[in-house]
C-alpha cells in the first residue's frame, strides 16, 4: 500500500504537450479516477506512473520513493490494460501465474495464490483454457486476476471496461467496486466514461488539454463544477447551457429576457455569461406558471424518466421529469428552473462565477 504523488510532471513530444506541469497527490488506499475526453492526457499520466512513459520533467513518487528512473517491474504496481494485454500462448492459469513466476515466487506458493485470485473473479472453471477461447468479459477477469494475484502497492487500470458491451460493463463495474473495497489498494483508474468515474471513485480528477481542471469527490464534481468544461462533461443528459448576458439580475439571450435570477445569484450584471442548469433541476409545469414558456420540440421516454426538449432560438433545453409525465410535441408548456441549482459561468474564460 502506498500513496502516489506527481510533482510538476510534464510529458512533451517535441512541441506537443501531452501532460502539462501536473501535480497530484493520491492518498494511500484511495480510488482515484482520471476522467476526460480522448487526448486529454489521462492515459499518458497513468503510463508515466507505470513507467511505460518517461516524464519530460517533474517527479513521480510511489510511497516515499522517487520512481522516475525505476523500470516498471521495480515499481511494485499491477496494471489492467484496455485490450487486456493477455499472453495468448499461455493458459489462463499461466497468465495469472506469470507475475508470480517472473518475480521468483516459490513454486509451491504459486498454485494456491492463482487459485485464490481466480476464485475472487470467478474464473476457476476456465483456468486451463487459452485466452482465445474466452469471451470479452472473461478475458477482462483474467486481466483482473493477474493484477490481484500479487498484492501490489498500486493498481493502475486503463479503461478496463471500455471493450465490454453495455450490460456487462455495468455488472463488471459493480464487481470492480466490490473488489476495490475488499482489497483496499491504492488505485488509479482512467476512463472517459463519466458514469464509471462517478460510481467508482473516491475522488475524480477531470482532465482537459493535459491538465487537471478539477479534482474532487464525485458529488463535488457533479454538484459544484468549477468550469464550463467540467459542467458540460459530467452528467447525462448533459447540463443545459445557454449563452447570454445579465442586466440588473435578469438573464437574457439574443431572443430577449429569459429568466430573473434569484437574489442568491453571485452577479447582478455581467456581459458574456453562460447559464447552466441540469435537466433534473428543470421541471415541466403549466404554461405561465414557470420561468419560461415554450413549445415542446421532442419527448423521449427513457423508461425511468421522460426527457422533454424545447427550443429557445438556437439553444435547446432539456428537462428530466418522472416517467408519468405526459406531453406532446408542439404542446405549450412552462419550465421552472430550480433557483438553487443555477450555475453561471464567465463566457470567455469558462470559469464559474461565484
Amino acid at each position, binding site marked *: 500500500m502506498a500513496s502516489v504523488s506527481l510533482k510538476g510532471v510534464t510529458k512533451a513530444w517535441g512541441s506537443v504537450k501531452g501532460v502539462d506541469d501536473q501535480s497530484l497527490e493520491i492518498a494511500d488506499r484511495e480510488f482515484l479516477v482520471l476522467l476526460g475526453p480522448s487526448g486529454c492526457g489521462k492515459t499518458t499520466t497513468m503510463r508515466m506512473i507505470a513507467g511505460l512513459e518517461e516524464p519530460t520533467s517533474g517527479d513521480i513518487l510511489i510511497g516515499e520513493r522517487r520512481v522516475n528512473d525505476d523500470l516498471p517491474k521495480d515499481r511494485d504496481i499491477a496494471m489492467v490494460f*484496455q485490450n487486456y494485454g493477455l499472453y495468448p500462448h499461455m493458459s489462463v492459469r499461466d497468465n495469472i501465474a506469470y507475475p508470480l513466476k517472473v518475480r521468483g515466487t516459490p513454486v509451491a506458493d504459486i498454485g494456491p495464490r492463482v487459485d485464490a485470485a481466480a476464485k475472487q473473479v470467478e474464473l476457476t472453471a476456465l483456468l486451463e483454457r487459452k485466452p482465445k477461447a474466452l469471451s470479452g468479459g472473461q478475458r477482462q477477469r483474467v486481466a483482473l486476476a493477474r493484477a490481484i494475484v500479487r498484492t501490489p502497492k498500486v493498481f493502475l487500470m486503463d479503461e478496463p471496461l471500455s471493450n465490454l458491451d453495455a450490460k456487462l460493463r455495468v455488472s463488471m463495474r459493480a464487481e470492480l467496486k466490490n473488489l476495490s473495497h475488499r482489497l483496499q489498494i491504492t488505485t488509479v483508474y482512467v476512463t472517459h466514461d463519466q458514469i464509471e468515474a462517478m460510481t467508482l471513485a473516491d475522488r475524480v480528477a477531470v482532465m482537459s488539454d493535459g491538465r487537471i481542471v478539477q479534482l474532487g469527490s464525485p458529488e463535488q464534481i457533479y454538484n459544484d463544477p468549477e468550469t464550463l468544461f467540467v459542467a458540460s462533461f459530467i452528467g447525462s443528459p448533459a447540463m443545459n447551457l445557454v449563452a447570454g448576458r445579465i442586466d440588473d439580475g435578469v438573464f437574457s439571450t439574443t431572443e430577449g429576457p429569459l429568466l430573473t435570477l434569484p437574489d442568491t445569484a453571485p452577479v447582478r450584471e455581467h456581459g458574456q455569461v453562460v447559464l447552466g442548469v441540469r435537466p433534473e433541476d428543470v421541471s415541466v409545469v403549466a404554461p405561465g406558471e414557470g420561468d419560461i414558456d415554450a413549445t415542446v420540440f421532442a419527448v423521449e421516454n427513457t423508461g425511468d424518466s421522460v426527457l422533454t426538449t424545447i427550443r429557445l432560438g438556437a439553444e435547446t433545453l432539456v428537462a428530466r421529469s418522472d416517467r408519468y409525465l405526459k406531453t406532446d410535441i408542439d404542446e405549450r408548456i412552462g419550465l421552472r428552473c430550480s433557483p438553487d441549482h443555477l450555475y453561471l459561468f464567465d463566457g470567455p474564460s469558462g470559469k464559474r462565477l461565484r
Partner: protein
Amino acid sequence: MITGRTRRRLLETCQVIAILAFIAIMLVPILWIALAAFKEHVDVYQLKLVFEPTLENFSRVFAEPYDLGTKLFNSTIVAAVTVVIAIPIATAAAYAFSRFRLRGQTLLLVIILATQFVPAVVIVLPFFLMFRDLGLLDTLTGLVIVNLAIVMPFAVWMIKGFIDGIPIDTEEAALVDGSSRLQVIRNIVLPMAAPGLVTAGIFCFIIAWNEFLFALILTSKKAVTLPIGLALFKAEEGDLWNLMAAAGIIIMVPMFILALLIRRHFVQGMTMGAVR
C-alpha cells in the same frame, strides 16, 4: 437460357480445370525429373511412363567422380549454419526496429533492403578478391558469410513484420508484471512470433540451399555445394540427364520433407504478421 445454377456449375468446372492445368504446369517437369532419375541414360529422352526402374543413377552420383555426398554435406552445413546464425541476429534487429524509436530508422531499414537491389553478379568479383586475401575461398565459412549477407536483410524485414503484429499491450503487461526487457523477449515475444521465426528460417534455408552464383565463383573443390554439383553432369559425353535428375531429387527431397513437417507453422506464419 443459362440458369444461375448452371452458370455457377460452369464456373466451378472452369475453376477446377484452371487449377488442374496450373498443377500440371508445376508438376510435369518435376515428374519428368523424378522419372528420369530412375531411367537408364538411353531411355531419358523417351517419354515412356512404363520402364524398368533402376537405382544405378543414385549410386553413381554418390560415387567418384561426382561424389554428391560431400556436396550434400556442404549444402546442409552452409544452409543450416546460415539459418542458425541469421535468425537470432535478425530477430534482435527486427525487435529493435519494431519497438524502439531510433534515429534514422526508416533510412536504415531502406538501406538494409537496398543491399538486395544490387545484382549479385556485380558484387561477386569484389567478394572473390576479398575472400582470396582472407583465405576464405573454397571454404564453408566463406559460403556461410556470403549467405548471411544474402538472407539477413530479408530475415530482418520479415521478422519485423511478425513482431509488429504482436500487440504492444501484451509486452507492456509483461513489463509491469515484473519482467525485464530480455524476459519479455524470451517469455512473450519469441513464443508469440515463433511461427513467423520458423517461416523466416525456412525461407532463409531455401535461399541458402539453392544459392548458385556465389558458390560457383567462390568454391572450387572442397566446399562445392549441391547446385554446383549439378553442373558437373554436363560432361564430355553430353548432358547426363539421368544423373542430373537423380541429383535434383536429392536436392528437392529435403526441402519437401521440411515443408511437410512445418507446414502448419508456415501457414500460421504467413497469415500472422502480414495481414492485420
